[in-house]
């Protein structure tokens, strides 16, 4: 069978390639540029074999090589704040941070945007699967996921195809892995029609001593492929998905869909964790984008890089196949899910196999580590690949893409929301509140998050509806972590530098609001085409803003992902950097919820409120307007606010805290009142227009509920540190009342707030 299979292909060998320099190769169709092809020939000293060309095409794609973004991403390292807790920084599968004791946490966010548009369920599902394998590869047990999502208009026909599929896929895969889903966001905007953003963040925990790296060293060690068999999933996906827009009309560019098997992944996770616990691998890598091409080259290249000696021989025909008709080029490019590659010493291989058998996981030795410095592959004895793996993994092209500030940027910023009609009377304000809390971006998301399991593993302290997700890591000490993701495309469109900082500030504030100390950052940078100088300017500004912001806040970027080409034709999405912030809390029993849960408590507004409506939810919902400047950023103020919120939580001064962002003060108050089931009476500060007080989106603010007995202590704490703190009301009754303006019963607010999603997407 196998010999007849091999005869079906005319195998392009290394020897043939050397002897036939003039053979024309379809490099353009694979997305390889003329100069890149010339460089490949220069590196090899001959033309590449068809398998080598396949590998270069995927490894040098935007998706794998970060060729357009790399020059900008460098800032995250160059401007990184000095810290003593970063154990593994950017470049590995995920960053690792020390969270105290002997525990470390690894976390990372990734995009699966285009696949989720093509096949929402499987695209979103395999997005979860991929990021979870990245976390696993670091040697960690995955313990939670978060999913920041962006869709086209909530009432658009296509959104009703995409959203239920995406939500079903995230739940279907994540729930079956036994991973709690503890946060994320859902935002609708016309700019995402045709380009939904499906980002997934995963977090894992490990002992500091057990960090695993993706390295192949030790000549004679086995290269083991284990997990699912290789099929024709997403062949060429890695480069094609990330480099093609959907309107270019080339069916060949349409990615074939990858299908996930969460049961296999669950078994693979438990199998890997047992293998890690017995320290049976030298190095490990998951198979994600670019599949076997990526795993073999990255393992071999990292081994060479760190030890100075290495190499790998692979017998590609030994890879177990789901589809026996696959050609070697296709096997190398396949993105079949739920596969891992390990480097295992001969002495530990029998035990490695035993554990795989326990979990019914297929494990196959397909090669060996060498000291040749080369990555060599054979197919039924024929030499099909012979390259220096570093040329694939590390020496890809680096582009200094041209960029310039868009000509329309000034006009956009000049078109301020000042001209928009504002509600004036109490009745107008009341009606505006009811419309706002029911608008899709601000409405209750229970319809979605009920489809996710947030409880499994029994350590979820906070999840959806709170400012950040929080997990207990250690039952004895109460040590825990908090995670929040945020990103505002409208703000970033108005001002990419400050928009990115506002995303960082909001995630940072959300983590602090629950009582955790923000520690580190992961980011998913979702942009249009880097070949458009205006998009590239947005990207350059946003990365610069984020790097500067992380330096000020002392939170290093530990890793992340860039997603380009999120556009349809000439129109790109709003630049949407999604920022995930990880925080640590010494004792999770001290966490602060956002619910107003006790009558009689005092409400305090922390921070300053200015007349800031550029890019606001109000301008979006009520006027479909986007213009002006986003709220002012003051990261020192954010730092101070965070310190106060953390101290208040630690010292038991706060019974509730909720950050102020989209929709302003009134949105936060309504959410906290509904969650706690208690009304509030608000007395707005003197000298501030009611509309501005209620709907402004000024950054650096939070609303807190303080027990009567602690009010003085807390306000003195704010006063001593110079944080503006105003008494704005009391938790009382069963309505949200703004003195002198309006009162809305909680039942009416709840109906408006919770009715939107079931109304849009069915019961």
């Amino acid at each position, binding site marked *: 069978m196998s010999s007849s299979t091999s005869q079906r292909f005319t195998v392009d060998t290394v020897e043939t390639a050397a002897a036939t320099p003039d053979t024309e190769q379809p490099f353009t169709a694979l997305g390889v540029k003329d100069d890149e092809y010339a460089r490949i020939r220069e590196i090899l000293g001959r033309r590449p074999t068809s398998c080598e060309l396949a590998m270069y095409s995927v490894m040098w794609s935007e998706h794998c090589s970060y060729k357009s973004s790399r020059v900008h991403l460098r800032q995250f390292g160059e401007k990184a704040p000095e810290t003593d807790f970063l154990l593994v920084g950017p470049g590995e599968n995920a960053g690792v941070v020390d969270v105290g004791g002997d525990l470390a946490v690894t976390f990372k966010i990734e995009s699966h945007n285009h696949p989720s548009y093509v096949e929402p369920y499987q695209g979103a599902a395999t997005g979860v699967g991929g990021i979870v394998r990245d976390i696993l590869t670091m040697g960690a047990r995955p313990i939670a996921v978060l999913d920041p999502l962006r869709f086209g208009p909530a009432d658009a026909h296509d959104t009703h195809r995409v959203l239920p599929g995406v939500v079903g896929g995230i739940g279907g895969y994540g729930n079956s892995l036994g991973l709690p889903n503890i946060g994320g966001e859902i935002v609708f905007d016309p700019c995402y029609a045709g380009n939904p953003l499906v980002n997934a963040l995963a977090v894992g925990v490990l002992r500091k001593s057990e960090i695993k790296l993706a390295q192949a060293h030790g000549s004679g060690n086995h290269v083991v492929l284990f997990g699912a068999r290789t099929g024709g999933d997403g062949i060429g996906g890695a480069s094609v998905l990330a480099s093609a827009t959907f309107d270019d009309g080339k069916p060949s560019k349409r990615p074939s869909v990858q299908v996930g098997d969460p049961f296999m992944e669950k078994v693979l996770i438990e199998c890997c964790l047992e293998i890690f616990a017995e320290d049976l691998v030298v190095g490990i890598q998951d198979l994600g984008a670019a599949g076997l091409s990526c795993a073999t080259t990255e393992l071999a290249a990292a081994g060479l890089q760190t030890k100075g000696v290495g190499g790998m021989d692979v017998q590609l025909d030994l890879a177990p196949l789901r589809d026996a008709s696959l050609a070697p080029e296709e096997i190398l490019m396949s993105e079949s899910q739920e596969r891992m590659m390990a480097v295992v010493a001969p002495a530990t291989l029998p035990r490695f196999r035993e554990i795989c058998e326990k979990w019914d996981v297929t494990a196959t030795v397909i090669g060996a580590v060498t000291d040749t410095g080369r990555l060599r592959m054979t197919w039924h004895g024929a030499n099909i690949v012979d390259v220096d793996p570093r040329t694939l993994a590390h020496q890809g092209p680096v582009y200094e893409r041209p960029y310039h500030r868009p000509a329309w940027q000034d006009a956009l910023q000049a078109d301020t929301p000042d001209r928009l009609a504002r509600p004036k009377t109490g009745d107008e304000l009341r009606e505006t509140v009811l419309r706002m809390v029911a608008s899709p971006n601000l409405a209750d998301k229970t319809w979605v998050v009920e489809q996710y399991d947030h*409880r499994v593993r*029994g350590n979820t302290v906070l999840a959806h509806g709170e400012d950040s997700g929080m997990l207990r890591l250690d039952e004895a000490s109460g040590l825990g972590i908090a995670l929040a993701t945020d990103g505002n495309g409208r703000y970033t469109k108005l001002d990419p530098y400050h928009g990115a900082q506002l995303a960082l500030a909001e995630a940072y504030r959300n983590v602090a609001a629950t009582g955790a100390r923000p520690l580190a950052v992961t980011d998913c940078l979702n942009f249009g085409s880097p070949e458009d100088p205006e998009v590239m300017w947005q990207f350059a500004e946003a990365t610069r803003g984020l790097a500067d912001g992380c330096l000020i806040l002392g939170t290093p970027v530990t890793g992340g992902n860039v997603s380009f080409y999120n556009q349809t034709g000439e129109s790109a999405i709003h630049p949407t950097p999604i920022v995930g912030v990880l925080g640590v809390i010494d004792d999770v029993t001290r966490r602060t919820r956002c619910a107003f849960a006790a009558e009689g408590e005092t409400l305090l507004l922390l921070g300053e409120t200015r007349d800031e409506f550029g890019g606001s939810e109000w301008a979006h919902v009520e006027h479909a307007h986007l213009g002006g400047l986003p709220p002012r950023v003051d990261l020192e103020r954010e730092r101070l606010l965070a310190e106060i919120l953390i101290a208040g939580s630690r010292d038991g001064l706060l019974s509730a805290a909720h950050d102020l962002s989209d929709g302003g003060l009134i949105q936060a108050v309504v959410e906290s009142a509904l969650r706690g089931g208690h009304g509030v009476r608000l007395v707005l500060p003197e000298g501030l227009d009611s509309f501005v007080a209620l709907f402004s989106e000024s950054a650096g603010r939070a609303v807190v509920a303080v027990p009567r007995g602690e009010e003085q202590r807390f306000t003195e704490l704010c006063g001593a540190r110079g944080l503006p703190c105003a008494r704005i009301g009391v938790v009382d009754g069963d309505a949200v009342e703004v003195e002198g303006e309006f009162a809305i019963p909680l039942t009416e607010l709840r109906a408006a707030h919770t009715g939107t999603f079931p109304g849009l997407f069915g019961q």
Partner: protein
Amino acid sequence: MAARIGVVTFPGTQDDQDALRAVARAGAQPVPLWHRDPALHAVDAVILPGGFSYGDYLRAGAIARFSPVMQAVIAGAADGLPVLGICNGFQVLCESHLLPGALLRNGGMHFVNRDVKLRVESAATRWTAHYEPGQEIVIPIKNVDGRYTAAERTLDELEAEGRVVARYLQNPNGSARDIAGIANAQGNVVGLMPHPEHAIDELTGPYPGPATDGLPFFTSILKQLVDA
């Protein structure tokens, strides 16, 4: 010596750690059991926890039923071994014919994770003795195949014999007669769709609460084992 309560892990089981924690919280000794191991390791009771055993690919619980450990559980149940099947465990018990009926796709088709109110209908089982009959409790559900169904005659029998253990106050999935859990005739085998092991702790239980209404499932069995 503390009572030993086994918790079975099938490939694809998710809530085994939670069930083990609940057992320990109740004061019993948790004993992990593996699907391929036919030995019950001298446990005094067995919990089949939630999850998606074998991916639930054929039908929820259908393949787990044939695992070596289930042969021992089925034999033990006939001799009076207390068995609690939670969610996927309930599905396994139905597939094993230790309990009548079956669990089908939720009426709303989606996975639903929600805190629900239940009424404990029977305190006469080994697992519910610490509740008052008629007591209303809050326990989370999280499943996609949670709609209990059985022939009308079987449902009548369950009702007549007092074997409906718990009922939903607001039916979340279309279960026949609002049934959330049932028992066998002897009262030693109980299947429950909601997850009591996720309601044992103020920190992680249902919010705004009550957060610990699930604990009596685990203390009930412990008390009975200690008394026995």
